[in-house]
């Protein structure tokens, strides 16, 4: 079963990488860009019985390793 995990910076945490991307986009003529935040996307292939199990296991993985709760939030989607 495929789980798609999104790890993003918490609100208020500075993102110099996002600022650099924003500046690049603006200098390319995309003046409409007001803010950029860079995060991480992970795909996990899990050997689990069902979606409920996948959800529980993915949550534990995010809490333990995939996200740092000091600066990051996470969310995930379980794909069939």
């Amino acid at each position, binding site marked *: 079963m495929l789980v798609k995990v999104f790890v993003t910076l918490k609100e208020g*945490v*500075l993102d*110099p*990488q996002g600022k*650099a991307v924003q500046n690049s986009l603006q200098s390319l003529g995309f003046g409409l860009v007001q803010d950029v935040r860079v995060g991480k996307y992970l795909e996990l292939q899990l050997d689990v019985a069902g979606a409920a199990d996948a959800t529980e296991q993915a949550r534990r993985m995010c809490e333990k*390793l*995939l996200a*740092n709760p*000091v*600066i990051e939030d996470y969310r995930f989607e379980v794909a069939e």
Partner: protein
Amino acid sequence: MRWGVAVFPGSCDDDDVVYCLRNVLGQDVRTLWHKDAFDGSCDGVVLPGGFSFGDYLRAGAMARFAPVMQGIIEFAQAGGLVLGICNGFQILCESGLLPGTLTRNASLRFVCRRVLLRVEDNSSPFTRLTRPGELLEMPVKHGEGCYYADSTTLTELRDNRQVLLRYSNAKGEACDTANPNGSVDGIAGLCNRGRNVFGLMPHPEDAAETMLGGVSGLKIFSSMIAEIRNGCGA
């Protein structure tokens, strides 16, 4: 004094720390391989700089789960002296032994230069041979040394005098221009509430001989040795 220096795949300053302790300070040193258990039979442990596990995911995120870290975390929780330098600081934050975390330098550039550090507090095993306000000079070399903690944590750090070193100019002012990485409050090094775990981004082991440009870094190790000699450590 018996020292243990942890070695992870991707550590690269472990030899510098071993050399500093063994050859410069005449200490009894052994390395602690990341796959081995650590039984706590040391007076002090150093987590060295480098790029453990390639800095994948986040710097220090995977080293924190290496078998050797289990014993080092228990050693720290029992009051043992643990010093984390650069990547070692990142590992201490990831493992929860120190609050906050280290993120990408505000400049987005790898920074490699000598910095001045102002001693903020000398009531710790790591700074007891320094004076408050004293300036120490050491090199930094990192891409992810921007210390971050939320405002509640920062207040706690101040209230408990846990910030031991701040980036400073030659006048002893902790100003933005002296801050090489954008760390909040110019924090270069801090300890836990128990004052037995210390993490810093600058490299004391690389400021340990005159031919390297200075010996400020020895004060950190010598402070720890003095602490153990006085029987205050683990």
